[in-house]
């Protein structure tokens, strides 16, 4: 059932100006069907890396391959990558349904298909019946789920989630995790930027630890070693501590 192809990063770097290096020569391969989480301290280039892959940020050096195709210079809207932002980024002038249907409308799908898929996506995140609500009439968790539904309706092959659990209630967190696993099982690429080194980490298959450069990747035993955490967080080991923003 795996349809997505791997993402490969080759010597990927991002510099702002001359002095600031946000991402330093990362080599990485992300395979479909696995639930990845991207870890690292604040400002370590997690978001920047994802934004480069999504095409929202231009790589200073190196190459990005999706499905063995070099997409380093491809405009973002031609890449098969969906990104869920930290700020919910719902379109304030559209209701819930229009938000979810937006990507499908942009792709000029037939009317009935748009309706069917949008409603299905809303059902997946447990927001049936709220399609005519204004987005600002929803709670934070609900807004996050609308955002999720919008990405799901899109049927991309690659899903990036930037801190999806910030300010989200337990119910929403469960729903979101469930969907992550579902997407991974369907053979999609799922990468989640996560601030939290706490318990939720156990829900991911593979961990990628970043601090400007790639420090370690693999399963928990491989990544969460003291020496790695030392390199990433500089002395302070913050495993299982709660650090939000």
């Amino acid at each position, binding site marked *: 059932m795996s349809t997505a192809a791997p993402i490969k990063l080759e010597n990927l770097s991002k510099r702002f100006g001359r002095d600031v290096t946000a991402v330093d020569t990362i080599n990485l391969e992300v395979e479909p069907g696995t639930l990845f989480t991207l870890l690292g301290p604040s400002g370590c280039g997690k978001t920047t890396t994802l934004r480069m892959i999504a095409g929202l940020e231009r790589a200073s050096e190196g190459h990005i391959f999706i499905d063995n195709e070099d997409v380093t*210079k*491809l*405009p973002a809207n031609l890449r098969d990558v969906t990104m869920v*932002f930290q700020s919910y980024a719902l379109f304030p002038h559209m209701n819930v349904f229009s938000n979810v249907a937006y990507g499908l409308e942009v792709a000029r799908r037939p009317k009935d298909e748009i309706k069917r898929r949008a409603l299905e996506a809303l059902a997946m995140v447990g927001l049936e019946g709220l399609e005519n609500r204004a987005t600002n009439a929803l709670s934070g968790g609900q807004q996050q789920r609308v955002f999720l539904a919008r990405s799901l309706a*899109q049927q991309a092959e690659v899903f990036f989630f930037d801190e999806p659990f910030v300010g989200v209630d337990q119910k929403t967190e469960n729903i979101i*995790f469930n969907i992550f696993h579902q997407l991974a099982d*369907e053979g999609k690429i799922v990468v989640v930027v996560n601030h939290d080194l706490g318990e939720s980490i156990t829900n991911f*298959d593979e961990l990628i630890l970043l601090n400007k450069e790639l420090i370690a990747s693999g399963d928990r035993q491989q990544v969460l070693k003291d020496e790695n955490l030392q390199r990433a967080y500089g002395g302070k080991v913050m495993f299982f501590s709660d650090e939000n923003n």
Partner: protein
Amino acid sequence: MSPPSKKGGQGGFLTTTQRNAACKVQTSLILGNPLALNSPLSRQQTFTLSGAWLPAALAIVGFLALPFGRTGRAFLAVDPSLRPWALGSAWVWLVLVAALAAVVISILPIRTDLKGELLTLSGALGLLSGVGWLVATETPFGMGALVSLVMLITVMGFGLSASGRIQSDAFVASSILFVSLFIILFILYPLFAVLQNAVIVDGVFTFERVRQTLSSPRFLLFENTFTERSESGLTFIFAGIGAAAGLALSLFRRWSIPRLITSLLIATVVGFLIGLMLFARGALPTSLLLATVVGAVVTVLGLAFAILGQRSRFTAVRRSLGALSLLPIITPPFVLAFAMIFLFGRQGMITNRLLGLSTNDLFGIIGVAGAQILAFTPVAYLVIRGSVASLDPSLEEASQTLGANRWTLFRTITWPLLRPALANAFLLTMIESFADFGNPLILGGDRFYLATEVFSAFAARFDQNEAAVLGVVLLIIVLIIFSLQRLWLGGGSFVTVTGKPSSGSFSPLPRVLEAILITLFSIWTVLVLALYGSIVFGSFVKLWGINNTLTLQHYRDFMQAGWPVFLYTARVAAVSAVPAGILGFLIAYLVVRQKFWGRTFVEFGSMLSFAIPGTVMGVAYILAFNTGPWLLTASSVIIVIAFVFRNMPVAIRGGVAGLAQIDPSLEEASTTLRASSSTTLRRILVPLLIVPLIGGLIFAFVRAMTAVSQVIFLVSSGNMLATVLLLGWVEQGQLGRAAAMATILIVTMLSVILLLMLFTRGRGAQGVSA
């Protein structure tokens, strides 16, 4: 470094049942999920058809179907001798070859980035050969050239996007190209034409005309041999006093040597300029004196009104100050000058009736200064108001609890916070004063002014070289002031920092100060109301000051001579407002939201169009578009273009301010949902920014209706504009019908602005959220 990416422990620690328990999602939906099928949206093939085939094909059609050049001014005339095959030039055919090549490249199965490079190359080749031919043969461009070249630029846009040189889609890439070319063609090239005409006379490079113009007594009379005193001597004495003062200050403050030298130089120059303004005659010292005095007075008044508007105890005063800021928008800049003739002229209501004088003192630098002060005070008020509003009351409270008295408070807290706004207001009004054209033309008297000299050199002495030299001088002065402002206030960006009124309450104004301010404001208000009233009154009486019988004669005259012109003006203004608004918004979007090579250029270019005095731009347009490949003069087209580039900055500012309130992640979300940037603009940004967008359109329209300094160079017999006609009537002394036209203009503008406010109030909430 590549990690061993195996599916470790399928699903982590949560088992499938646990997961389903965590969320009630129908299992059937997961298993038989239609979303899980191979996505029909995904783009798998590497070889794609480029959309560039369409513009390339249109370029071919345009090239073959329409004449490449034209002989006269008529755009749509089909002259068979200017068909491509009748021209017998290989260069012209390169356009077609390039377009054909672009079509072929678009459908060729080659790598995307290579395809992009080839498309860029062929587009550029066609563009260069087409433009090259037009320039080399000096043939005015025809519709065929217009269509095919525009389409080739679009092809280049597709190419730059596909090659990744501009990392955005073809729409943004093409927009960047078009905007840059517009700036080059309609802002930089005309300025270049002015420079060229200043130093190239009859095809020969010479500084002779520069020398002649600058040494003419009309420009600068440094030493008047008919007076007993020595003006130059006095000026040098002032320079010496300045130098001494600078030196004394430096020694007193114990400044370092470099700083001492700088302050010495600045003080000397300032002293020299003051001496020049006081003793010398001619356009340069007169304009300088005028701008300095007007700038200073207007800044003080603006500050006074801003303080009053923010802290007055009376709501009525604060309200009427809001209305004050509308005045310069709804009135053509010279209408107050014209009204001043009614009140203070030889037959003036005040000077003649009340005071029994019969004087022409109004006509001269005093009258012009008065008119400019009245016209520009609202501008300064608007600039300073934001700053006064953003003064944080808690700062004042804090310092008062620390025991600071009012004076200390003002000196240490208020003044440093206000200083940038005051400098900004001063320099902006100086620029406005230098650039002002209508007021000196009406009230100038026997003095010369830079802006009017440019016009009279051109229109009265028919000397385009002299006009160009004077234009360059005016341009240099304004650019110096403008860069001083940038230097002083920092930031080369359009993004203005707007202060939010913060919590806490201001201590009320001292009663004496408030009384003084209110008196000042009352005088100002009465004066302005009297001036506007006199225009309305003047339009209904037979002959102002002589025969005050009521009559509609002037309106009948206006209907006959002015109404068609008024309608034409409204039409041209409306037609130009749309591209001005769209272009302004596009530039705002590109500058704020896109990163591309040449962004600074676009920003600088559009700022330039804002800074350049209208008279300079008017001469520039005449010199640039009167002959040769870009022949456009004596048509509505050039007036529309002039309005578009003159008023575009208003829309840019509106767009920048609006975009600042919208979270960029909305656009990014739209992009990752695979919307192109044109779709994102249309479906996300335009609906969210509809209020500032409409506002930009309306202001562009209103500004076009009331503009005069640039277009006075561009009007022709069939293309007369209301303000130019009005100015002509005032000059001819037909004050009655001029008053009628001014009344109609003011009433129209007022209703347009009121409609806009009504519209904005209803929709005010939108576009702020996000």
